[in-house]
């Protein structure tokens, strides 16, 4: 599809762009009236409008946009919705968060929105150049936002670690992309795939090396072992709304990228349908390699989380573990696996954002990120404690929360793929994870608090928390619609 026609599919991104401009203007003229955060309001409105306009795109058939640069399919539509929803929530979080309240809000929101655009593009890119561009668009913004905190030392340290780590990772990935270009002579996915399909034997090692180099970049985004090192430090140091954003949206981007790039180049859809196979004569057991990474990721994530006392850091490790769970779905190379990943991502979005919202509330009201902050929380603010508990149980994967269903879906996919050993590793990890999630629950409910003084939760936060937790419960019981949605969205454009 040509560039001009493509614009009609690009409305959400355009709205975001306009919103960015408005935010910048609003900030520039210092239009803050009655304490209302105007840039924030504009960003919020923009992202909500983008989200609404995005819904329309679902009804459009899958097609290529901008001369094949990006694809419009259900997969990218899903991720766009995912990122937009995430942006809406994070914007709301930011608007009332004490952590970033005195800083330059305009910059913050505009960068946030541009990151969102970058993410949307990553999820739909069909070209190596596009991928790199989009990735850098989101990465650069993330580096800056990570340093956007009033906890000055740690935030900057996080930012530095992030930029150096990210720079190296994307650099290595870029080197891999350049080799891929060299191997196939094209930057377009479909062309790459075609070349690889017709390639002769003997490029296994090259293909694997390229894959590995690219994986460094992708793995870093999804915080997969052994590329996860940045995550705990950066999560801890960043302003909490950004941590939430990174842990959900950034991770989602990583998965979108992994699936998009991997499934459309090194793999090809099997004629039998329902699963993918290696292209051409490349004889590499991708499933095994990804499965090993998945197992390592969840295990190290969970083990690392056990001894954490800082909630953000704990959630960072938990995020690593969940990346491992999600990788279980990716490594299967099946439709059901993709559906499970998509399903799980939706669940993860609500659950993790809600959990981080509780952390934000803790940080704002008590200036405490540690376990001490939640001690005796039940006595002080039962609603928040219960909400957090629901989130944690969802993260463990216990019914009747959506987390359970997400795990269920993942394991169905996994066992259909007969990856029994990974399933065992997965469930054992679930048991391990109970231990540290339950520690938080224990602190909230079983341990005495130093003060019984009730915590006043901002009504917006209370509303947002409810809005995030209710789906966690709702999808835990009535998840047929979500399952069908996941099935609907798990369709990549194929050639």
């Amino acid at each position, binding site marked *: 599809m040509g560039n001009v026609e493509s614009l009609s599919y690009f409305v959400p991104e355009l709205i975001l762009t306009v919103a960015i401009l408005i935010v910048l203007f609003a900030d520039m003229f210092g239009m803050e009236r009655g304490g209302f955060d105007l840039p924030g309001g504009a960003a919020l409105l923009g992202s909500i409008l983008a989200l609404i306009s995005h819904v329309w795109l679902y009804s459009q058939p899958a097609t290529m946009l901008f001369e094949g640069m990006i694809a419009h399919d259900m997969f990218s539509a899903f991720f766009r919705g995912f990122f937009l929803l995430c942006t809406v929530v994070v914007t709301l979080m930011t608007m009332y968060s004490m952590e970033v309240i005195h800083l330059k809000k305009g910059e913050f929101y505009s960068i946030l929105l541009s990151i969102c655009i970058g993410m949307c593009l990553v999820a739909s890119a069909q070209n190596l150049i596009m991928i790199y561009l989009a990735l850098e668009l989101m990465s650069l913004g993330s580096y800056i936002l990570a340093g956007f905190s009033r906890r*000055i030392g*740690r935030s900057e340290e996080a930012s530095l670690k992030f930029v*150096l780590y990210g720079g190296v990772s994307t650099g290595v990935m870029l080197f891999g992309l350049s080799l891929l270009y060299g191997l196939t*002579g094209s930057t377009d996915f479909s062309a790459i795939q075609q070349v690889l399909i017709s390639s002769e034997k003997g490029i296994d090692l090259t293909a694997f090396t390229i894959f590995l180099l690219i994986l460094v970049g992708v793995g870093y985004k999804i915080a997969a072992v052994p590329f996860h090192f940045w995550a705990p430090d950066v999560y801890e140091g960043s302003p909490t709304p950004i941590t939430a954003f990174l842990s959900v949206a950034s991770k989602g981007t990583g998965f979108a990228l992994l699936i998009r790039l991997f499934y459309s180049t090194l793999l090809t859809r099997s004629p039998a349908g329902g699963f993918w196979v290696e292209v051409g004569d490349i004889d590499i057991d991708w499933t095994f390699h990804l499965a090993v990474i998945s197992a390592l990721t969840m295990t190290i994530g969970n083990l690392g989380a056990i001894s954490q006392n800082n909630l953000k850091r704990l959630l960072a490790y938990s995020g690593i573990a969940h990346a491992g769970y999600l990788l279980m779905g990716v490594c299967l190379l099946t439709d059901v696996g993709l559906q499970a990943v998509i399903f799980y991502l939706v669940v993860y979005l609500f659950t993790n954002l809600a959990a981080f919202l509780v952390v934000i509330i803790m940080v704002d009201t008590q200036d405490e990120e540690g376990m001490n902050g939640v001690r005796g929380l039940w006595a002080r603010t039962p609603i928040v404690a219960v909400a957090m508990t629901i989130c944690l149980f969802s993260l463990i994967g216990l019914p009747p929360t959506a987390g359970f269903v997400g795990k269920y879906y993942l394991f169905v996919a996994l066992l259909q793929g007969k990856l029994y050993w990974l399933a065992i590793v997965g469930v054992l990890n679930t048991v391990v994870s109970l231990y540290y999630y339950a520690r938080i629950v224990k602190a909230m409910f079983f341990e005495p608090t130093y003060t019984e003084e009730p915590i006043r939760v901002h009504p917006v936060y209370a509303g947002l928390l409810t809005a995030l937790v209710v789906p966690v419960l709702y999808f835990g019981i009535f998840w047929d619609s979500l399952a069908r949605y996941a099935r609907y969205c798990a369709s990549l454009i194929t050639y």
Partner: protein
Amino acid sequence: MAVGLEHCLVVSISLFLLGVFIVMTQRNGIRVLMGIELILNAANLNLIAFNRFLPNTDVNGSIFAVFVIILAAAEAAVALAIVLAIYQQFSTVNLDEISSMKH
């Protein structure tokens, strides 16, 4: 002997490994940034060389390289800004000393 693809690749891979070596060993933040630049340029060299020497390639390689150059500049700008902020905060750019968050 004309310069061929192999020569370019040897150079680019050397550059890449050098960059990787630098980022892994150097304690100065600025030097790490320079290592990153080396890695990016190794990739650039690859892209250009493949575009130049391989048959059946589109021009996208060169275009890619241009984009990379631009983004590298942007990234360097961001990174340097952060390093600056770090220096104001810690009075050092030695990465060993910037490790308040660990384990």
